[in-house]
């Protein structure tokens, strides 16, 4: 009985997570990053929210001095609003808070292009991008 209940609960949790994360636009973007990752590395075994979380919270080097980390502007809690260096509010990065996050390929390309250059001083890899989106879709 206990086991059945736990199973049902976890099923509901998984379903809810899947529902929150599932969006045709976002799925397509993730699929494109996955294909790119596979092309670069045949051993690619899927995106990891844990890796995405680490990437999000790390202080990187190589980027612009004022923005060493994603958290500089987006704060350590992706479910909360961030703030640009010019003081403008940024909607929470977490998909659970901002459902249309990562659904517009142009927007995604623009911001990865800008912010990877700003924070890391280079383009992000397909794996990093996919992990990032997977992490922020998982909460």
């Amino acid at each position, binding site marked *: 009985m206990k086991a059945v209940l736990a199973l049902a609960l976890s099923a509901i949790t998984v379903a809810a997570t899947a529902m929150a994360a599932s969006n045709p636009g976002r799925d397509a973007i993730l699929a494109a990053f996955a294909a790119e990752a596979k092309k670069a590395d045949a051993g690619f075994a899927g995106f990891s929210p844990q890796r995405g979380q680490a990437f999000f919270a790390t202080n990187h080097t190589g980027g*612009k*001095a*004022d*923005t060493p980390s994603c958290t500089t502007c987006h704060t350590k809690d992706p479910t909360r609003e961030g*703030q*640009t*260096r*010019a*003081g*403008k509010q940024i909607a929470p990065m977490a998909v659970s808070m901002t459902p249309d996050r990562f659904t517009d390929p*142009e927007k995604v390309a*623009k911001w990865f*292009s*800008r*912010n990877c*250059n*700003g924070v890391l001083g280079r383009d992000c890899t397909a794996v990093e991008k996919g992990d990032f989106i997977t992490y922020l879709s998982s909460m």
Partner: protein
Amino acid sequence: MHFDNGEIVICPPAFSCRTGRPARSRGDVSFGQGCGGTTTGSARNRGPNRSDDTAIAASASDRVTGTLVVRPRSEIKDAVRRVRVWDLPTRLFHWLLLGAVLAALGTELIAPPGWLEWHVAAGYAVAALLLFRGVWAFFGSDYSRVASFLYRPRQTLGYLRDLAKLRPAQYVGHNPAGAAMIFALVAVLAALVGTGLVALGGQEKQGPVAAIADFALGSGARSLHSYLAYALMAMVAAHIAGVIVDGRLHKSALVRAMITGWKRVPARLPLAAGRPSNMRAAAVTLAALSAPAVIALVLLSRLPPLGVPAMTPDPTWASECGSCHVLFHPSLLPRASWAALMDGLHDHFGEDAGLAPATAAEIGRFLQTYAAEAWDTKAAHRLSEVSAADPLRITAAPFWVRRHRRIDPAIFTSPAVKTKSNCIACHRDAASGRFDNQAIAIPDSPTGANP
């Protein structure tokens, strides 16, 4: 009749004091009721001048012998009388004008820039008071009429020479120097109103001449306006000095006269004819002059200001630039700065703000169309002079730095403002590029210090 000097009333033996008649004209020998030999108050007659028209003199021998003598007033040196010199409207005008001038000075020198509204109101009050005084110069009572203080230049120079020798002649109304000062004050005040309106229109794009005056004209008027203000302060000081000197030399209490309307003057001085004021004619004239003036001012104020083009915000500019920072109005940088800024988006004030080429081109076109060169506003003119070291940064422009130097730095980092580039946190009209003084609302300083 004045008994407060210890003088006694003296009548000639040939006349009965009781049957004396009040003098109606100057130089007349008068016998007020005071000639009864009592000391019961003043014999203020009801003549047109409403002056205390009884001359009094007594010598020690008179007192001893008991002989009563009345002499023509002109022969009596120390006799004084009270004359109603300033009617109520003139007195009100004087003190209201003082109030308006002090208000104008205070709102400019002490109050924050947001008080421009009140400075302008004080200016309009000065204009209205001057208009009234101009009308009252023809319909007021004797000493308020301009005809009573028109002196020839030679008279004025002669008076000033005598004044230099501390022997100026005494006048019931305005003396020649005072009259000259009044004309000068009126001229300078009128010029202050005029230059103020042109400055308001040309520089601030507000008020009745905003549609006519351009920024250069407004700037010239603004300079002249401040020179005139300093001249006015010097003249007010001279005016007050004149009142003090006259008070010393003639024992005249001019300030009291301007409050009560009554002035003590030597009885020998000739009085004006005693024409009453014509309040009705003054009111009609004032209405006839001010109604068209007010209508013209209101209509002119509604015209669109010169050099403020109608701008339709480009939606791509609004969404792309507005996603990271407040939208900086295109008039806040010259074309060259916008062009350089759009060329350097990959290192945009420490951020990569790269855009797709087509998007960047569209935004660039919009910025070039509405850059500072396209505007005649104060912000466009002043901020066109960019910082040589940092030509893309609006907050580095010399004018920007100068204008914000007294703002507590803590305000810029306060939660309500966050950063210097957040114009709209204090300038509520920043989106329009106008930056009116009245639209400034600085959030409270976190350290409690007021800018």
